[in-house]
C-alpha cells in the first residue's frame, strides 16, 4: 500500500539530489536547475501532506501553486542574470565571479 511515507521518501531523495546539484555545479544554470529540483521536492511534500493528513482542505495545493509562481519568477530573473553575467564576463563559472571576495 502506497502511503504518505513513500511520497515523502521520493521528495527527500529529489531534494537531496537538488541540494547536491546546487552545491557542486560550476555554472549558474546548473545551480538553478538544482534549485528547481529542491522546490519541486517541497511541492511534492506539500501536496502529499495535503492529500493524506487534511484531504478536505486544499491548503497544501494552494501553497504549491504559489511555490510554482515564485519558482517561475526566480527562473526568469536567474536566467536573466545568467545572460547578463555571460555577456559582461564571458563566463558562467561561479568560481570566477569572485569580485566580492576580500
Amino acid at each position: 500500500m502506497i502511503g504518505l511515507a513513500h511520497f515523502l521518501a521520493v521528495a527527500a531523495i529529489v531534494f537531496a539530489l537538488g541540494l547536491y546539484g546546487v552545491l557542486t555545479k560550476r555554472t549558474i544554470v546548473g545551480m538553478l536547475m538544482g534549485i528547481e529540483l529542491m522546490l519541486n521536492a517541497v511541492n511534492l511534500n506539500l501536496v502529499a501532506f495535503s492529500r493524506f493528513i487534511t484531504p478536505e482542505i486544499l491548503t497544501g495545493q494552494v501553497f504549491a501553486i504559489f511555490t510554482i509562481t515564485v519558482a517561475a519568477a526566480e527562473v526568469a530573473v536567474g536566467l536573466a542574470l545568467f545572460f547578463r553575467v555571460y555577456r559582461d564576463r564571458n563566463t558562467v563559472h561561479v568560481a570566477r565571479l569572485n569580485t566580492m571576495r576580500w
Partner: protein
Amino acid sequence: MFSQYALDHAWLIPLLPAAACMIIGVFLRRLPVLAATAAIGMSLLSFILAAGVAAGMFAQGITIEQPLVYKIPWLTLPGLAVDMGVYLDPLSVMMLVVVTLVALVVQLYSVGYMHGDEGFGRFFSYISLFAAAMLGLVIAVNFLQLFVFWELVGLCSYLLIGYYFHKISAREAAKKAFMTTRVGDFGLLIGILLLQFLFGTLDFQALPVQIPAYLVQHGSGLLTVVALLLFVGPIGKSGQFPLHVWLPDAMEGPTPVSALIHAATMVVAGVYLVARAFFLFSALPEAMAVIAWVGAFTACFAASIALTQRDIKRILAYSTISQLGYMMLALGVGSLTASMFHLLTHAFFKALLFLAAGAVLHGLPGKNDIFEMGGLRRKMPATFAAMVIGVLAISGIPPFAGFFSKDEILLAVFAVSKPLYAVAMVTAFMTTFYMARLLFVVFCGPEKSGQQAHEAPLSMKIPMAILGLLAIVGGYIPYTAGFGDWVRFGPAAHLAFDWKIAGSSTLLALAAIGLAWLIYGSGCNTAAVLARRSGLAYQLSYHKYYLDEAYLWLNHTLVDGFGKLLSWLELHVVEGILKGLAGLVGQLGNGLRKAQSGNLRVYGLVMFGAAMLMLLWLLFDPLLKGLLAGGGY
C-alpha cells in the same frame, strides 16, 4: 537712637562695601571719580555704622558673655543646619571699627596713590569686596560663615596681590598667596568638619556650652587634634611659620593693599579666628602650648630675616609676620586681651608704616632697595614724621601705641613661661633694630645721586596724619579706658603694671635704636663689614633660610614630577593597554575574515551542515522526542 539703629542693622556693615563692589564692577569700572566716591562713601557709611554699633555696645552693655546675635537660616539639611548672621560682642565690634576705619583710610590714601592707574575702578571694586569679606568674617555666627568669608578674603587678596597682573612676579605672588593659604584651609576645613561631626553644630554660642561636657566625657585627645587642625588655617592665613612664605611676596600688590592686608584684614583673620574660638583653644593646654610656641618662633624667626632684607616693603612684611607671631604668642599664653590690644595698635602703626613706605615709593618711583635711598628727611618731611611715629610705636617706646600693647603681651608671657619671655624680648630687640635701620638708611645720611624725590600729595598725607595720631594715642586711650574690661575671655584680669618689665623692654628698644644708629646712621659704614663677618648667618637670614627655595623645589620637583609621571603613565601605559585591547579585537576580526572565503559552495555546505545539525539536535532533544512520541501529526 542711632546706636540702636546701628545695632539692628549691623548686617549692613559688610553689605555696604559689597554693594559698592557690585556697583563699581558693573557700572563704574571706567569712571574713576565715581568709583572712588562710591567706594569711599560706602566705607564711610559702614564706618559710621560700626561706630554706632560700638556706641550701642557701650550703652547697652553687650559683653563677651552676652553677645547680641541676629541670624537667619542659610542651609538646612538633616544633620547640618547653618545660619548666617551677625554676632556682636566687644571682640567683633572692636574688629568692625578697626577694619572699617583702616579700610576707609586706605581708600582715601589710594585716591592719591592710584591716581591715573588704568585699573582704578577695578582697584576700588576689589578693595571694597576685600573689606566686605573681612567684615563678614568678623561678624560670623558660626565656623562655616567664618570659613565662607575667610575664603572670600583669600580670593580678594589673590585679586589684589595680582593687581598688576602684567608683572610675572605679581602673578606668581598672587598664586602663591592663594595656594599657601589653601594649604592652611585644608586643615581648617577638616577641623570644621570634625567639629560638626563631633558636636552637630558649628554655632559660636552653642559650641562653648557643649565643649566642657564633651571634655569631661571623652577627654581632650581628639579635641586637641581638632583644635590643632583648626589652627592650621590661621597658620596659613596669618603667616605663621612654616606657611608665612606668601606674605613677603604679597608686597607685589599696590602699597595700599599691602597696608590693608597687613594691618586690618586678611592676616589678622587668623588671629581673630583663634580669638573667636578661644572657648575651644583655652580649654586645651597642649593646643595652647603649640600656639604659643609657633607664635614665638614665628616672631623671632621673621625678625631675624627682616634684619638683612633690603626691600623696604619686605622689611615691613617680615615685621608683620613677627608681630603676628606676637599676637599668637599672647593668645597661646592665654591672654586674649593682650593679643587683641596688640592687634588694635598694630593695625594703626602698621598701616601707618605702610602708607609712609608707599609715600616713599610714590615719591621715588621704581626704587625698592633701601640702600638706593637716603637722606629723604629733607625732601619728604611729612613722610619722615609718619615713619618716625610708626617706628617708635612698633618699637614700644612710651607713650606710643605699641608700648602699651607690647607691654601687656610681655606681662602675660612672663607670667606663664620664662623661655617664651626670653624669645619675646629677643624679638623685641631685633624688631626695634631693623625698624631703626630702615629709618636711618632711608631718611638719614647723604642723599643718593640722581634722586628725584618729591613729597606725597595731600590726599595721601591726610590718611597718614589720621593714622599717625592713632599710632600715638591708640594705645594709651584704650589702656586707660579699660580695654581689658570689654575685650577679654573669662573674667577681666588686669595684670598689674610691672615697672621692671616695662622698663627693661624700653631700655632694650633704646639700645637697639642706638646700635642701629651706630651701624647705619652714623656714617661709619660698618654695615658691609658686619655682613661679611657674620657670613653664614647673614646668608641664611638674607635668603630667608632658603625656605622659598625648598617649597619651590617641593612644588616643581615632587608635585610636578609626580604629575608628569602619571601623565606619562596615562599616555603610554593606560593608552597602551587600551590600544592593545583594540588591537586584539582587530586581530580577532582578521582571523575571522579568513572564514569569509567567498566560496559559495563552502557557505552552502556550512549552512546545510548547520541545518542538519539542528535537525539532529531536534531529533534527539527529549522534549521534541516526547512530542513526536505523543502522537505527532
